[in-house]
């Protein structure tokens, strides 16, 4: 019996949280037909690659469209004054 997309998406979300190579709770996952779509932001390119690897292991029969981006940190350019 084929796995419903809803349950596969949740299996992937849980896997991304629990796998120590990723440990991310905020990656958005959607499964449509034979495609897995991923969105969100991670801190480094290494972590983005890890997301890709883990998802391919969890869903080996699916094509992965990894649209996760890598965040760019900048120093602050202003100070908020709180009264």
């Amino acid at each position, binding site marked *: 019996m084929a796995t419903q997309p809803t349950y596969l998406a949740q299996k992937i979300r849980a896997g991304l949280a629990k796998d*120590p190579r990723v*440990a991310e709770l*905020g990656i958005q996952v959607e499964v449509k037909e034979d495609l897995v779509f991923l969105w969100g*932001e991670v*801190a*480094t390119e*290494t*972590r983005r690659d890890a997301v890709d690897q883990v998802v391919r292991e969890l869903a080996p029969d699916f094509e992965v469209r990894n649209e996760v981006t890598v*965040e*760019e*940190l*900048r*120093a*602050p350019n*202003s*100070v*908020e*004054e*709180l*009264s």
Partner: protein
Amino acid sequence: MIRIAAVGDVHFGEDSRASMRADLEALEESADLLLIAGDLTRHGVADEAAVLADELDGLEVPTVAVLGNHDYHCGQEKEIRDVIEGSGVHVLEGEHEVIELDGATVGVAGTKGFGGGFAGACATDFGEPEMKAFVRHTQAQADSLREVLSDIEADARIVLLHYSPVEATLVGERLEIYPFLGSYLLAEAIDDVGADLVVHGHAHNGKEKGLTPGGVHVRNVAQPVIQRTYNLYCLGSDDDPVC
């Protein structure tokens, strides 16, 4: 005035090394205090904390942190705390620290916090043992926060949490997960005593600014929210109102 730098959810791992150091060293000129609002590590192992400890080691600015849910994931929260404290950072869990600055004192009450949701749509201390345990953990966190905040004698009082005390800084997250992102019990404890600022993390898709029902400024400084190494805030005082 008191100049505060704050960030949360840095989620350090080996690949984070040196990612913040240059900006942290610049704090000597721009801040009196650095607050880190939990989720210090990726998945809660002491090796990851050691990388952050190296990043923070030797900083001139006093630094105060709390742990977050990620820091508890592998059961190494005590080791993580020890490693971070080894770099000179004050780690608080139901405790406070009073920092003496040049001309002022600032007290920081810190605790992780927990979930349960917000007034009108929250978990109740009722039913199965597991549900009661969930709610009672947050109540205990709020009670200890109230107590340690009351004990602070300082010119300014700041609360440092990982979980959010208000819904306003969660806007952007799915409504269904609000109960896992914070609790009104934390805001109630803060408003019972009073504070000048609350800083938290945890909600990566939330927004920065909010207020408690009692009017205390709340700032979600999770790094994915602020998109900066840290944010800078200035608290004026009666004697020195200009930032």
